[in-house]
């Protein structure tokens, strides 16, 4: 498998590929957002329509899954940024993979379990926060023993499985996409000279298109499930 450039700083390991990719995509998301909302008017212009559509879309996800109006207000921004960020990170590896020597420098950050676990953890912490804000610390813990007390351990395990499924689903989908794309590009294309290269091109194209689709769907699924988990914490069953 590809290695990436890992360095140690303040006793922590840092993976350069993930840092570069995420920072790059954060900048892209930021500039696209600023560009789209440069002129905000009551009578919307075309660019404003685009960002308003996106906002409506993520707001719809929040509205469908969170019934608490207080949490909704904060989650609207979270869902909007999270969706765009994950979507962009999913797509990054499809058109840009930079390899210097043996080390990957640019690839999809979401093709790495650490990244997806980071975002899943963010969601999880957010859901804890909202739950405790809503019911208080004691009320929050009591909710684990609902509807009957012996379900407490199962509810605790569910918390861990939620975290794992949320992160690993995204990771698996994007990682598999990248692996297959790398296989087509690196192994299949040069295997029999020019013939396979010509044949591999449309195949790579089809897979890229499919990966764009998967990347969008996974971003949507990630945000939706995040909202489901948060929504579950702020509603009394």
């Amino acid at each position: 498998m590809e290695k990436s450039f890992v360095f140690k700083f303040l006793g922590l390991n840092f993976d350069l590929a993930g840092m570069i990719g995420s920072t790059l995509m954060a900048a892209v998301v930021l500039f696209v957002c600023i560009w789209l909302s440069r002129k905000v008017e009551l009578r919307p212009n075309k660019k404003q329509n685009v960002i308003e559509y996106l906002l409506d879309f993520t707001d719809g996800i929040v509205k469908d899954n969170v019934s608490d109006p207080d949490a909704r207000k904060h989650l609207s921004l979270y869902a909007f940024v999270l969706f765009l960020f994950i979507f962009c990170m999913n797509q990054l590896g499809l058109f840009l993979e930079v390899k210097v020597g043996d080390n990957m420098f640019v690839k999809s950050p979401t093709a790495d379990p650490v990244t997806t676990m980071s975002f899943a953890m963010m969601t999880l912490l957010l859901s804890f926060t909202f739950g405790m804000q809503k019911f208080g610390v004691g009320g929050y813990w009591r909710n684990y023993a609902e509807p009957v007390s012996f379900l407490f351990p199962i509810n605790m395990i569910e918390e861990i499985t939620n975290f794992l499924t949320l992160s690993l689903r995204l990771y698996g989908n994007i990682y598999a996409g990248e692996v297959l794309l790398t296989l087509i590009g690196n192994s299949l294309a040069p295997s029999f000279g020019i013939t396979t290269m010509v044949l591999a091109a449309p195949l790579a194209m089809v897979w890229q298109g499919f990966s764009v689709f998967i990347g969008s769907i996974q971003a949507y699924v990630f945000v939706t499930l995040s909202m489901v988990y948060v929504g579950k914490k702020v509603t009394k069953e």
Partner: protein
Amino acid sequence: MTFQTLFAASSGHIYIGNTIWYLIVFAILLVLVKHYAWGPVSEMMEKRRQKVISDLDSAADNRKKAEVLANEREAALKNSRQEATQILSDAKANAQKTSSQIVAEANDDAASIHEKAKADAAQAKADALDEARAQVADISVTIAEKVIAKNLSADDQKDLVDQFIKGLNK
């Protein structure tokens, strides 16, 4: 600061540092997007929502007002039509009354004129008769004088004159 090339996660290293990096990047992204894009856009959407609501409200209000106005106008129209017919019928009645009055007056006038003319004519006739009678008497006296003049004596004549004078005095 020590850089050290290590193997990726698959080879046993878990880079917790990345998690912190992602958190920081995401937090910064959240703040910036909120400030530059999400904030203004959602604010504008809310403003538009409020505007649509107020526009709808005012449209409903206006429609209600227009309905009331239309009803009022219709009522006024009906009223004025009624008034017009009332005025017309009043005028007709008045005219009839006036005309009959005029006719009656004219009749009265004609009758009185007729009466007066009759009286005048009778008076004139009587006057003419009286005059004629007087003249006839004068003429007959004169004729009689002329006829009798030769035969009368002076005494007789004196008697006659006396008688005449007496007649005058009466």
